[in-house]
């Protein structure tokens, strides 16, 4: 059991030499063993009850959760008992690690199982294994592929967000008065809940009868300012709202990057007579590439989860033009109670995301190495 978290000794930490008695080691091992056995027993009992083999056990699985918590504590305490000071570092890492593993590993595997069933909450027959039916349905589902294509548009929109955010970061980095005021104001949209933003902007400011933007558009000569009726305009409106919320995030990262730039280089360029435009493209922009890349990649990862605004403003409409994968799956769960199929879509999407993001990271790091 003590190999669970073998620790190479860190020489930079002078740990007092410290003798651990054999009895203490035994006790530590015993504790872990006991806790493991107890946890396994409770799990087994509950499992037997769930499949109808036995009547004893608990009304729900909550005791298994408590057993896991106790097992975790015993595991951590055991590390310290067995290895003394050298077991201490495990105490730092294990809580977060055990928590994440419990919260992610189990749902992921359980999700894989659900994905291959025909589980529908509204059907009376419960769930049955149905092999590759869900996968076959997925490949034939034009709404899902439509949502995937929309995600490509939304991800491309991140580049526009980046351009605006860069401009704002440059503005805030210029010699201006009230920099702090403008920084707070520009950050404000990031603080607001996307759901509230959905109402504030999507459902009232852009509302076609009384919304101020609609009235303004009418003044300008657009007779029927409907922001969510035709596919491209609706998509653009959603992108604008999403940009409003997320530009501050990119802006803050870029601003920090700008402030960390070596001032002498820009001074030297100025002395040499470079115009602002030249020194931006020749010096600032290349120096900002690493930060830019971090900001854009992070933003793309978050963009792939886009759902709240779409769910609350258009529910994917008109005709699926604004649908994101997340909002589509959300409706699959909520409106059609199609748990098995929805989970298959989600797992499939996860695979696409993992491939896409690792590709993105590889390309980004390769490109960075070539540029620098």
């Amino acid at each position, binding site marked *: 059991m003590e190999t669970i978290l073998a620790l190479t000794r860190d020489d930079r930490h002078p740990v007092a030499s410290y003798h651990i008695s054999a009895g203490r080691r035994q006790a530590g091992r015993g504790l872990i063993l006991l806790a493991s056995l107890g946890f396994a027993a409770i799990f087994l009992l509950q499992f037997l009850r769930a499949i109808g083999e036995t009547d004893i056990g608990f009304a729900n699985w909550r005791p298994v959760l408590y057993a896991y918590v106790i097992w975790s504590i015993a595991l951590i305490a055991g590390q310290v008992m067995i290895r003394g000071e050298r077991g201490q570092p495990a105490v730092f890492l294990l809580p977060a690690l055990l928590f994440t593993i419990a919260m992610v590993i189990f*749902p992921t595997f359980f999700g894989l199982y659900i994905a291959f069933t025909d589980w529908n909450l509204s059907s009376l027959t419960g769930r049955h294994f149905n092999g590759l039916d869900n996968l076959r349905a997925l490949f034939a589902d034009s709404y899902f592929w439509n949502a995937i294509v929309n995600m490509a548009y939304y991800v491309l929109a991140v580049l526009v967000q980046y351009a605006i955010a860069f401009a704002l970061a440059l503005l805030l980095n210029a010699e201006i008065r009230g920099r702090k005021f403008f920084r707070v104001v520009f950050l404000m949209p990031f603080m607001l809940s996307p759901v509230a933003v959905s109402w504030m902007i999507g459902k009232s400011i852009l509302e076609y009868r009384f919304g101020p933007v609609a009235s303004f558009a009418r003044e300008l000569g657009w007779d029927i300012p409907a922001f969510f009726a035709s596919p491209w305009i609706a998509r653009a409106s959603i992108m604008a709202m999403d940009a409003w919320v997320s530009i501050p995030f990119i802006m803050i990262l870029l601003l920090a990057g700008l402030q960390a730039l070596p001032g002498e280089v820009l001074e030297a360029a100025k002395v040499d007579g470079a115009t602002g435009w030249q020194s931006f493209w020749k010096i600032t922009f290349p120096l900002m590439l690493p930060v830019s890349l971090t900001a854009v990649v992070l933003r793309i990862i978050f963009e792939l989860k886009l759902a709240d605004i779409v769910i609350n403003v258009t529910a994917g409409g008109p005709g699926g033009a604004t649908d994101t994968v997340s909002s589509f799956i959300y409706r699959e769960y909520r409106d059609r109670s199609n748990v098995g199929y929805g989970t298959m879509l989600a797992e499939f999407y996860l695979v696409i995301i993992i491939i896409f993001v690792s590709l993105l990271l590889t390309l980004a790091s390769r490109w960075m190495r070539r540029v620098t």
Partner: protein
Amino acid sequence: MTAVAPVAARRKDDAARRARYVSGRVVIYGALIFWAFISLFPIYWTVTTSFKVAVDVTQGHLIPWIDYTPSWKGWRSLGLSPDTIFQTSTVRDEFMQRFENSVLASVGASLVAVIIGSLAGYGLSRFEYKFGPWRNKDISFFFLSQLILPPVVLAMPFLALYKELALLDSIVGLLLIYTLTVLPIVIWIMRDQFGSIPRELEEAALIDGCSIWTAFLRIVLPVALPGMVAAFILSVVLCWNEYFFAALLTSSDAKTLPVMVASQTGSQGINWWSMAALSTAAIAPLAIIGIFLERYIVKGLTAGSVK
């Protein structure tokens, strides 16, 4: 060369430079004010709309006291206007309960995440772990990779899991999943924070005979406090705004503010004043955090990304 240039030409040169300087300033401040307007107008609109009545909405009035008289109608429908706030009413209780749920879930999850995330961040920045073939770098990457997981992947398994664990529609269930979603960010920030603290600080204490824990709690933590505050505040913001899990995993008892806002958006015609009041109340705590604790949010967001 300039010394022999005619005075008139030099003056002209100065004037041109000054004109360029002034026009540059005008452009910069114009752009700043334009974007400040874009950032603030929706908030201004929501706050002012919460004091309107039907006729002000349909006629598109914009400025209180000048083109319409503010009214407490919207706030009264939430039970939060000055004359109703001290009376018990179902609408007020409903709002207060949602508000409380949001506070409990976001503050609770952020606390848990900051505690276990700080421990892990410290461990990863100071000790060398070996976990099978995994080293520190791989463990950090494992934590960080959780960021990629879209909520939809976890949603259904959690719904089934929580049903079995009797955690559905409970604050504890929500708190656990929020902890999971912010933990990678907290670990990222804290690892960066501890990494910037020189090791000599604890080494001196360890040589003096302190244990690892005393050194961590007494000496390192106080220095790392700004990072912890930043991680905590950023987590609160993210959890407070979370909608997806709350919408799927709660139904009545544990519903949070975003779910309440979302459930009301579809159910009215132009009952804008009460929606605006609700939205204002939902965003107010974060707007206040944004104004007073802005530097912590900036610190949290930029941790580790700019070197």
